[in-house]
């Protein structure tokens, strides 16, 4: 019977798992200590993320926190673009300016979504990219509105 059990367990292992720290069984919700990866470690030699890595509590908490901050940024840009103008009546500059305002409004959600999409298993990289986006995409045009409101 012991021989049969070993064969069953073998189905959950993959050659080279010990080298990458993933010798634990790859079952949802069954991630043992041996299956844990450092936050910034490459997922595997083939580049594929380990199953369920993005569902780690730390990653989820950081992502949700940044999601709220990016939501505030988006609202700021929606309000802020109401206080900018092309400063000309030319048709082409007006169209390009409106297009620029539209892209500015979608900048924050696009930055957030793309970062989350491209960093499924790298908490450090994800947090760094999202923090960079917060700094770059601060909605300065909304500042006069905040000052008047204050």
């Amino acid at each position, binding site marked *: 019977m012991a021989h049969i059990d070993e064969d069953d367990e073998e189905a959950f292992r993959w050659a080279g798992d010990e080298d990458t720290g993933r010798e634990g069984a790859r079952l949802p919700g069954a991630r043992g200590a041996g299956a844990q990866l450092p936050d910034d470690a490459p997922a595997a030699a083939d580049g594929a993320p380990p199953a369920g890595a993005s569902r780690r509590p730390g990653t989820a908490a950081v992502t949700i926190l940044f999601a709220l901050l990016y939501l505030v940024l988006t609202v700021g840009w929606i309000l802020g673009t109401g206080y900018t103008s092309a400063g000309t009546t030319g048709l082409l500059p007006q169209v390009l300016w409106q297009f*620029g305002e539209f892209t500015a409004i979608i900048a924050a959600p696009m930055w957030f979504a793309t970062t989350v999409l491209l960093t499924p298993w790298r908490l450090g990289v994800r947090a760094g990219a999202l923090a960079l986006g917060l700094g770059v995409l601060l909605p300065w045009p909304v500042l006069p509105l905040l000052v008047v409101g204050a």
Partner: protein
Amino acid sequence: MRIVIVIVFGLLHLWALFQGVSNLIALPGFYAQSGLAAYTPWWLLVLGVLVPVAALVAAVLIGRRRMLSHRVALLVVSLATANAFVLSAGALAPILLAWQAG
């Protein structure tokens, strides 16, 4: 196909770059005529030129060896960031002037 997409997004970035260059050329003269030459926000004007270029280059470099949809997403983020920075620079300049000139 991929190079065509990069060229199209490169052309779309030109609007942000044009505004950055335009501000860099025109704003110092406007400040000088108003007697505010000492308050010219040079760092902001230079960033206005650099950001659209840097964003496009970063999107192309990060998108290498990725699938097409990810490349396009990166280029959209780059374009949106460049245009957002143009608006931010336009709003920041008078704020900086008011802050520095008291």
